[in-house]
């Protein structure tokens, strides 16, 4: 009698187990979906923190008005342009660093450990540190060092081009180690047989890189590209801490624009609409990149 009950109890517990294991993920999902749904809803309203009485459902008015907002076009342009350049630069440099560290050079373990440093720093601290170093006068450390190689003081944050380049440099400094480490991990996991065969056949190092390493590494390359694309599309902390979107709105991206609308001007409805547009952009980009990754992984496996 008791054993039957115990067994039944045990079976019931067994049935509950999957849900129990899923629970943390479900809580997380609800925790993410709730603000997401709320934001989506607000993007269809005239929600303006300052004027609670004017709250109305306006369907797609906020999205339509974006088209006639000149700042939106500029922000979109900067978002896409920055992402393109940042991903190319960071993955390119990251690959170079990874190949360098993969080679048997003395002291590479020390270099590898040192490379982790930028990853340990919060991006805002990184940005503020660079902001001080990038002072526009000769007093700035960076301009002072550049003066030794005959470069005139660069107007880092005071000019529109300078500000764009500055944000790119700071973002690259902070994220290069991540790219390099993932690619280094990939390099170290590559099979050695194809290389031995190529060596026997007398292939040049360049040919080995072109026809062996890059194809074999491509799943890793696409993977870091996916991460970097998603992050670059929604870069915020560096911009917030250094340029605040300026000068002349040159470094305002979609996320910073959404921040200004929502938290500086309190137009939550419009700000949320901009955030939703950014979200769509990220979803599309990551979908494309993940398909690319699948294909690369299949090819590399063959």
């Amino acid at each position, binding site marked *: 009698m008791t054993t039957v009950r115990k067994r039944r109890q045990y079976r019931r517990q067994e049935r509950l187990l999957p849900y129990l294991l899923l629970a943390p993920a479900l809580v997380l999902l609800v925790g993410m979906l709730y603000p997401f749904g709320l934001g989506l809803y607000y993007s269809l309203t005239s929600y303006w*923190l300052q004027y609670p009485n004017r709250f109305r459902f306006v369907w797609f008015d906020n999205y339509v008005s974006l088209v006639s907002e000149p700042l939106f076009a500029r922000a979109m342009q900067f978002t896409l342009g920055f992402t393109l350049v940042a991903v190319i630069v960071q993955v390119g440099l990251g690959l170079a660093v990874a190949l360098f560290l993969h080679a048997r050079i003395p002291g590479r373990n020390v270099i590898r450990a040192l490379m982790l440093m930028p990853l340990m720093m919060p991006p805002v601290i990184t940005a503020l540190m660079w902001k001080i170093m990038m002072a526009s006068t000769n007093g700035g450390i960076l301009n002072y060092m550049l003066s030794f190689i005959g470069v005139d003081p660069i107007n*880092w944050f*005071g000019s*529109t081009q300078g500000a764009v380049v500055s944000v790119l440099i700071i973002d690259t400094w902070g994220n290069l180690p991540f790219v390099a480490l993932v690619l280094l991990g990939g390099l170290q996991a590559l099979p050695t047989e194809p290389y031995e065969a190529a060596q026997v056949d007398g292939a040049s190092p360049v040919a080995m890189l072109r026809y062996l390493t890059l194809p074999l590494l491509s799943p890793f390359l696409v993977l870091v590209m996916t991460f970097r694309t998603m992050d670059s599309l929604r870069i915020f902390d560096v911009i917030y801490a250094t*340029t605040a979107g300026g000068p*002349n709105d040159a470094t305002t991206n979609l996320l910073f624009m959404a921040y200004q609308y929502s938290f*500086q001007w309190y137009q939550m409805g419009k700000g949320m609409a901009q955030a939703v547009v950014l979200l769509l952009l990220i979803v599309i980009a990551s979908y494309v990149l993940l398909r690319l990754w699948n294909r690369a992984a299949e090819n590399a496996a063959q």
Partner: protein
Amino acid sequence: MRLRRRDLAGLLLAAPFTIKNVLSAAAQDDQALSYHRQAKIDWRQAAGQSLAIGLNKHPFTESLLPLIPEFRSLTGINVDYLILPEAEYFTRLVADLSQQRGEFSVIMTGPMRNWQYVPPNWILPLDDFLSNPKLTDPGWFKLDDFYPALIAANRWNGKTGSGVGEGPLYSIPVLEESYILAYRKDIFDQYNIKVPTTLEEMADAARLVKKNAGIPGIVARGTPGLASMGTGFVSGLKSYTDGKWSEFDEKLNANFHDPRSVAFTETWIRMVRDSGPANWANMQWYDAMEAFTAGQGGMIADADFFAASYENPAKSKVAGKVGYALIPAGAGGKTYAGLWTWALGINSATKNKEAAWLFVQWATAQRTLLNASLGYRNFNPSRTSVTNDPRVQEIMRPWGGGSYVTTVAKNLETAKVAWTPESERQRVGDIWGRALHEIYFQRMSAADALKKASTEADKILQEAGIKL
């Protein structure tokens, strides 16, 4: 309670100062308590209640924190507080006020901020508290000890477009901020440069300083937003037009493209581009202040109390080398500088209104504000008695060879809130600042950029339902 109990980062940063002053405050404790007990009110009438205070990170805030135990033992009221950096603070505040949650009982606000909070009745008029003998001892509190211009700045009749200085008092000022010109007296003397009294002379002086001394002739805030427009720039423009220009006419049509405004802006931008620092467009108030303090600027037209930094020998390279003058005037020869006060107000959604008022009264009492100025360089004082206190005079009197005190006093005769009261001031200031960047980077002419700013400002006021 939704509040964090302490702003940890703020406390850590302030720790070396706080600990010292907690000790000295403790030593004075009995004395301060007996000072407050001279007020003929029952301080303990709200004992056992709780208050939450929203504070912006600021020297005044630093001065208040170590004294809160004193308030607690005086009144038996529990105080919780949250300190945030300015931008985060105001966002959090609007979120609280607009939902009428009453999270903060007492808030740090000021004249232009009140224009956002008064129309929807988010903050309480304070006159009823002031005239209630159960809550206030007028003979002890002495409202007339405050500078009249500062009290006027915190009054408003609630009508968009006018009425500052009329109607109810919405907040009690804890400091005064107006705008004057600070210049490098040593450089001006050495190269025989005239202290400017007009805009053209100011541009000349800036050029001469740059040419002779090799440093930027002028430093100024340049980030495209309200904070840059509403301080030195608007004071210069108001003075240039003899106080006759304002950013909106009586029908709330924006006036940025007014020919006088265009002329002023052209000269100002040319001065900043030719003689200013390379990174003007990225300069916040602290960048400009620190550049001048580090000896990297010939002039700065900004907040008067920045002098406390310029004249601090421990941090400044220019202490004792600075002269002070009024902002250059227009044809009429008079200066019309803008004005701002940080002030304490009360959230209308708070449950403990009386306790909140007791806190405001205590925090703006003569003794508390004197401590803020003496212990924490909270300048300029909002009470005349604090300014006239010998120990405060001892600090301020030597600045600029005495020219600081006289300049500030003279400036306050005509200084007043520079803005037309309306609730979209932040947005309008940001629009205006963006126009200045279009001109500075030569993407548009001054006339076109300012015309565009007017059109955008009109549109926002319509969208917000302020203007029909």
